[in-house]
Protein backbone atom coordinates (compact mmCIF):
# COMPACT_ATOMS: atom_id res chain seq x y z
CA UNK A 1 0.00 0.00 0.00
CA UNK A 2 1.25 3.43 -0.92
CA UNK A 3 0.06 6.84 0.15
CA UNK A 4 -0.75 9.17 -2.70
CA UNK A 5 -2.52 12.47 -2.25
CA UNK A 6 -4.31 14.64 -4.78
CA UNK A 7 -4.99 18.28 -3.98
CA UNK A 8 -7.05 20.68 -6.03
CA UNK A 9 -7.30 24.42 -5.77
CA UNK A 10 -9.73 26.62 -7.67
CA UNK A 11 -9.55 30.39 -7.46
CA UNK A 12 -11.89 32.65 -9.37
CA UNK A 13 -12.71 36.33 -9.37
CA UNK A 14 -15.38 35.96 -12.06
CA UNK A 15 -17.98 36.94 -9.50
CA UNK A 16 -17.96 40.04 -7.34
CA UNK A 17 -17.20 37.90 -4.32
CA UNK A 18 -14.24 35.77 -5.24
CA UNK A 19 -14.37 32.00 -5.01
CA UNK A 20 -11.67 29.86 -3.49
CA UNK A 21 -11.87 26.08 -3.24
CA UNK A 22 -9.28 23.73 -1.87
CA UNK A 23 -9.61 20.02 -1.23
CA UNK A 24 -7.29 17.10 -0.77
CA UNK A 25 -7.91 13.39 -0.88
CA UNK A 26 -5.93 10.20 -0.56
CA UNK A 27 -6.15 7.95 -3.59
CA UNK A 28 -7.59 4.65 -2.41
CA UNK A 29 -8.70 1.43 -3.95
CA UNK A 30 -12.45 1.11 -4.51
CA UNK A 31 -14.45 1.73 -1.35
CA UNK A 32 -11.54 1.32 1.05
CA UNK A 33 -8.98 3.36 2.92
CA UNK A 34 -6.18 1.34 1.36
CA UNK A 35 -4.00 3.40 -0.92
CA UNK A 36 -3.55 2.65 -4.59
CA UNK A 37 -0.21 1.04 -5.36
CA UNK A 38 0.25 1.30 -9.12
CA UNK A 39 1.17 4.32 -11.20
CA UNK A 40 1.68 4.78 -14.92
CA UNK A 41 3.14 7.98 -16.35
CA UNK A 42 3.36 8.49 -20.10
CA UNK A 43 4.19 11.24 -22.55
CA UNK A 44 3.22 10.81 -26.20
CA UNK A 45 3.70 12.93 -29.27
CA UNK A 46 0.85 12.59 -31.76
CA UNK A 47 1.21 13.73 -35.36
CA UNK A 48 -2.21 13.05 -36.85
CA UNK A 49 -5.81 14.09 -36.29
CA UNK A 50 -6.81 10.44 -35.98
CA UNK A 51 -8.47 9.36 -32.76
CA UNK A 52 -6.03 7.53 -30.51
CA UNK A 53 -6.84 4.89 -27.93
CA UNK A 54 -4.79 6.61 -25.22
CA UNK A 55 -5.60 4.60 -22.08
CA UNK A 56 -6.96 1.12 -22.61
CA UNK A 57 -8.87 -0.94 -20.08
CA UNK A 58 -6.36 -3.72 -20.57
CA UNK A 59 -3.64 -1.49 -19.15
CA UNK A 60 -5.25 -1.48 -15.71
CA UNK A 61 -6.03 -4.53 -13.62
CA UNK A 62 -8.56 -2.93 -11.25
CA UNK A 63 -12.08 -1.55 -11.61
CA UNK A 64 -11.31 1.83 -10.11
CA UNK A 65 -8.55 4.19 -11.14
CA UNK A 66 -7.71 7.88 -11.25
CA UNK A 67 -6.65 9.56 -14.47
CA UNK A 68 -4.72 12.77 -15.09
CA UNK A 69 -4.37 14.09 -18.65
CA UNK A 70 -2.50 17.24 -19.58
CA UNK A 71 -2.17 19.27 -22.77
CA UNK A 72 1.16 21.09 -22.32
CA UNK A 73 0.84 23.08 -25.55
CA UNK A 74 1.21 26.85 -25.40
CA UNK A 75 -0.65 27.35 -28.69
CA UNK A 76 -4.24 28.19 -27.79
CA UNK A 77 -5.51 26.74 -31.06
CA UNK A 78 -4.21 23.24 -30.27
CA UNK A 79 -6.58 21.05 -28.30
CA UNK A 80 -7.38 17.43 -27.64
CA UNK A 81 -10.93 16.10 -27.75
CA UNK A 82 -11.20 13.55 -24.95
CA UNK A 83 -13.73 10.75 -25.29
CA UNK A 84 -14.66 7.60 -23.42
CA UNK A 85 -16.40 4.56 -24.77
CA UNK A 86 -16.11 1.24 -26.45
CA UNK A 87 -13.13 0.82 -28.67
CA UNK A 88 -14.16 -0.94 -31.85
CA UNK A 89 -12.17 -3.46 -33.79
CA UNK A 90 -8.97 -1.62 -34.50
CA UNK A 91 -10.35 1.86 -34.06
CA UNK A 92 -12.29 3.55 -31.27
CA UNK A 93 -15.98 3.84 -31.95
CA UNK A 94 -19.17 4.51 -30.03
CA UNK A 95 -17.48 7.02 -27.77
CA UNK A 96 -18.95 9.80 -25.66
CA UNK A 97 -17.15 13.11 -25.78
CA UNK A 98 -16.16 14.37 -22.34
CA UNK A 99 -14.59 17.63 -23.36
CA UNK A 100 -11.72 19.46 -24.98
CA UNK A 101 -8.37 20.06 -23.35
CA UNK A 102 -7.14 23.37 -24.69
CA UNK A 103 -3.53 24.53 -24.42
CA UNK A 104 -2.41 24.37 -20.81
CA UNK A 105 -5.53 22.54 -19.64
CA UNK A 106 -5.56 19.40 -17.54
CA UNK A 107 -8.23 17.03 -16.33
CA UNK A 108 -8.50 14.78 -13.30
CA UNK A 109 -11.19 12.15 -12.94
CA UNK A 110 -12.01 8.76 -11.54
CA UNK A 111 -12.23 5.99 -14.12
CA UNK A 112 -14.26 2.82 -13.77
CA UNK A 113 -12.09 1.01 -16.33
CA UNK A 114 -15.10 -0.18 -18.31
CA UNK A 115 -14.19 1.67 -21.49
CA UNK A 116 -11.09 3.09 -23.10
CA UNK A 117 -10.15 6.75 -22.88
CA UNK A 118 -9.35 8.22 -26.28
CA UNK A 119 -8.02 11.53 -27.53
CA UNK A 120 -8.22 13.24 -30.90
CA UNK A 121 -5.66 15.96 -31.65
CA UNK A 122 -6.98 19.10 -33.33
CA UNK A 123 -3.92 19.35 -35.58
CA UNK A 124 -1.64 17.04 -37.49
CA UNK A 125 1.32 19.06 -36.23
CA UNK A 126 3.20 17.32 -33.44
CA UNK A 127 1.06 17.56 -30.31
CA UNK A 128 2.25 16.28 -26.96
CA UNK A 129 -0.14 14.68 -24.50
CA UNK A 130 0.79 13.61 -20.99
CA UNK A 131 -1.15 11.26 -18.77
CA UNK A 132 -0.91 9.42 -15.47
CA UNK A 133 -3.02 6.56 -14.17
CA UNK A 134 -3.20 5.57 -10.51
CA UNK A 135 -4.84 2.26 -9.62
Amino acid at each position, binding site marked *: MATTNATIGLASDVTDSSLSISNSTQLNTAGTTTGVNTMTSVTKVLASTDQVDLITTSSVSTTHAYVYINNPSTDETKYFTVTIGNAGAGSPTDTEEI*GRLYAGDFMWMPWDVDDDICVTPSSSDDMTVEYMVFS
Partner: protein
Amino acid sequence: MATTATLTLASADIAGDPVSVSKIATLTKAGSTNDLDQSSGLNRVHLRSTANKVLLAANAEGSDLAAKVYIINKSDDASLYLTVTINAQTIGKLYGGDFLFIPWSQTDIHANIEVAATNWTSSTGDIPVEYALFHEDTDFLTNA
Protein backbone atom coordinates in the same frame (compact mmCIF):
# COMPACT_ATOMS: atom_id res chain seq x y z
CA MET B 1 -11.26 38.25 -14.38
CA ALA B 2 -9.51 34.94 -14.18
CA THR B 3 -10.05 31.48 -12.88
CA THR B 4 -7.13 29.23 -12.08
CA ALA B 5 -7.11 25.53 -11.32
CA THR B 6 -4.23 23.87 -9.54
CA LEU B 7 -3.68 20.15 -9.14
CA THR B 8 -0.96 18.55 -7.06
CA LEU B 9 -0.25 14.83 -7.02
CA ALA B 10 2.24 13.64 -4.46
CA SER B 11 3.44 10.31 -3.15
CA ALA B 12 6.51 9.35 -1.19
CA ASP B 13 6.22 5.64 -1.79
CA ILE B 14 4.23 4.72 -4.90
CA ALA B 15 7.50 4.52 -6.82
CA GLY B 16 11.14 4.03 -5.96
CA ASP B 17 11.58 7.78 -5.77
CA PRO B 18 9.10 10.35 -4.49
CA VAL B 19 6.55 11.54 -7.04
CA SER B 20 5.38 15.13 -7.16
CA VAL B 21 3.40 16.68 -9.97
CA SER B 22 2.01 20.18 -9.78
CA LYS B 23 0.02 21.81 -12.54
CA ILE B 24 -1.70 25.17 -12.74
CA ALA B 25 -4.05 26.20 -15.52
CA THR B 26 -5.72 29.50 -16.25
CA LEU B 27 -9.12 28.68 -17.65
CA THR B 28 -9.72 30.27 -21.04
CA LYS B 29 -12.41 30.40 -23.66
CA ALA B 30 -12.26 27.91 -26.50
CA GLY B 31 -9.23 28.41 -28.71
CA SER B 32 -8.33 31.78 -27.26
CA THR B 33 -6.37 33.41 -24.47
CA ASN B 34 -9.43 35.22 -23.11
CA ASP B 35 -10.43 34.16 -19.62
CA LEU B 36 -13.57 32.21 -18.92
CA ASP B 37 -16.00 34.76 -17.56
CA GLN B 38 -18.99 32.86 -16.21
CA SER B 39 -19.45 30.70 -13.17
CA SER B 40 -22.21 28.82 -11.45
CA GLY B 41 -20.53 29.42 -8.13
CA LEU B 42 -20.14 26.60 -5.66
CA ASN B 43 -23.26 24.50 -5.16
CA ARG B 44 -24.11 21.84 -2.61
CA VAL B 45 -26.74 19.11 -2.77
CA HIS B 46 -27.46 16.09 -0.61
CA LEU B 47 -27.93 13.01 -2.73
CA ARG B 48 -30.22 10.27 -1.54
CA SER B 49 -31.11 8.47 -4.73
CA THR B 50 -29.72 5.42 -6.45
CA ALA B 51 -31.21 6.71 -9.71
CA ASN B 52 -29.35 9.13 -11.96
CA LYS B 53 -30.01 12.77 -11.16
CA VAL B 54 -29.08 15.64 -13.46
CA LEU B 55 -26.40 17.70 -11.76
CA LEU B 56 -25.62 19.89 -14.77
CA ALA B 57 -27.93 20.14 -17.76
CA ALA B 58 -26.23 20.37 -21.12
CA ASN B 59 -26.72 23.36 -23.34
CA ALA B 60 -26.24 22.36 -26.97
CA GLU B 61 -24.86 25.83 -27.67
CA GLY B 62 -21.94 24.85 -25.52
CA SER B 63 -20.67 22.28 -27.98
CA ASP B 64 -17.83 24.41 -29.26
CA LEU B 65 -17.40 26.44 -26.11
CA ALA B 66 -15.16 25.88 -23.13
CA ALA B 67 -16.55 24.63 -19.84
CA LYS B 68 -14.90 23.07 -16.80
CA VAL B 69 -16.67 21.07 -14.14
CA TYR B 70 -15.63 20.41 -10.56
CA ILE B 71 -17.48 17.79 -8.48
CA ILE B 72 -16.58 16.43 -5.07
CA ASN B 73 -18.10 13.73 -2.89
CA LYS B 74 -18.00 15.25 0.59
CA SER B 75 -18.99 12.08 2.41
CA ASP B 76 -16.66 10.97 5.19
CA ASP B 77 -17.51 7.35 4.40
CA ALA B 78 -14.89 5.95 2.02
CA SER B 79 -17.28 3.28 0.80
CA LEU B 80 -20.09 5.61 -0.30
CA TYR B 81 -19.74 6.60 -3.90
CA LEU B 82 -21.31 8.59 -6.68
CA THR B 83 -21.46 7.19 -10.18
CA VAL B 84 -20.83 10.02 -12.63
CA THR B 85 -22.21 9.75 -16.15
CA ILE B 86 -22.37 11.88 -19.28
CA ASN B 87 -25.18 11.02 -21.67
CA ALA B 88 -25.56 7.65 -19.90
CA GLN B 89 -21.87 6.86 -20.40
CA THR B 90 -20.30 6.09 -17.04
CA ILE B 91 -17.14 8.07 -16.39
CA GLY B 92 -16.20 6.77 -12.97
CA LYS B 93 -17.02 6.57 -9.30
CA LEU B 94 -16.27 9.28 -6.77
CA TYR B 95 -15.76 7.66 -3.39
CA GLY B 96 -15.94 9.65 -0.17
CA GLY B 97 -13.53 12.59 -0.44
CA ASP B 98 -12.79 12.09 -4.14
CA PHE B 99 -13.15 14.91 -6.66
CA LEU B 100 -12.99 15.42 -10.40
CA PHE B 101 -12.13 18.36 -12.60
CA ILE B 102 -12.93 17.85 -16.27
CA PRO B 103 -13.66 19.78 -19.43
CA TRP B 104 -17.26 19.44 -20.63
CA SER B 105 -18.17 19.64 -24.29
CA GLN B 106 -21.99 19.55 -24.12
CA THR B 107 -22.04 18.01 -27.57
CA ASP B 108 -25.83 17.94 -27.55
CA ILE B 109 -28.73 18.42 -25.18
CA HIS B 110 -28.38 14.83 -24.00
CA ALA B 111 -24.84 15.38 -22.69
CA ASN B 112 -26.05 16.09 -19.16
CA ILE B 113 -23.75 15.35 -16.27
CA GLU B 114 -25.65 13.05 -13.96
CA VAL B 115 -24.81 11.49 -10.62
CA ALA B 116 -26.30 8.59 -8.72
CA ALA B 117 -25.65 7.48 -5.16
CA THR B 118 -25.43 3.94 -6.41
CA ASN B 119 -24.90 2.16 -3.08
CA TRP B 120 -27.00 4.53 -0.99
CA THR B 121 -29.62 3.14 1.35
CA SER B 122 -31.83 4.82 3.91
CA SER B 123 -29.38 3.74 6.58
CA THR B 124 -26.23 5.10 4.96
CA GLY B 125 -27.21 8.75 5.18
CA ASP B 126 -27.17 11.34 2.44
CA ILE B 127 -24.14 11.94 0.29
CA PRO B 128 -23.17 15.63 0.27
CA VAL B 129 -22.04 16.68 -3.18
CA GLU B 130 -20.47 20.01 -4.09
CA TYR B 131 -19.97 21.20 -7.64
CA ALA B 132 -19.07 24.21 -9.71
CA LEU B 133 -19.14 25.08 -13.40
CA PHE B 134 -16.86 27.61 -15.08
CA HIS B 135 -17.82 28.35 -18.66
CA GLU B 136 -18.54 30.66 -21.55
CA ASP B 137 -21.94 31.17 -23.16
CA THR B 138 -23.07 32.74 -26.39
CA ASP B 139 -26.28 34.08 -24.84
CA PHE B 140 -24.62 35.88 -21.98
CA LEU B 141 -21.64 37.78 -23.29
CA THR B 142 -19.94 39.55 -20.44
CA ASN B 143 -16.34 39.79 -21.55
CA ALA B 144 -15.42 42.26 -24.26
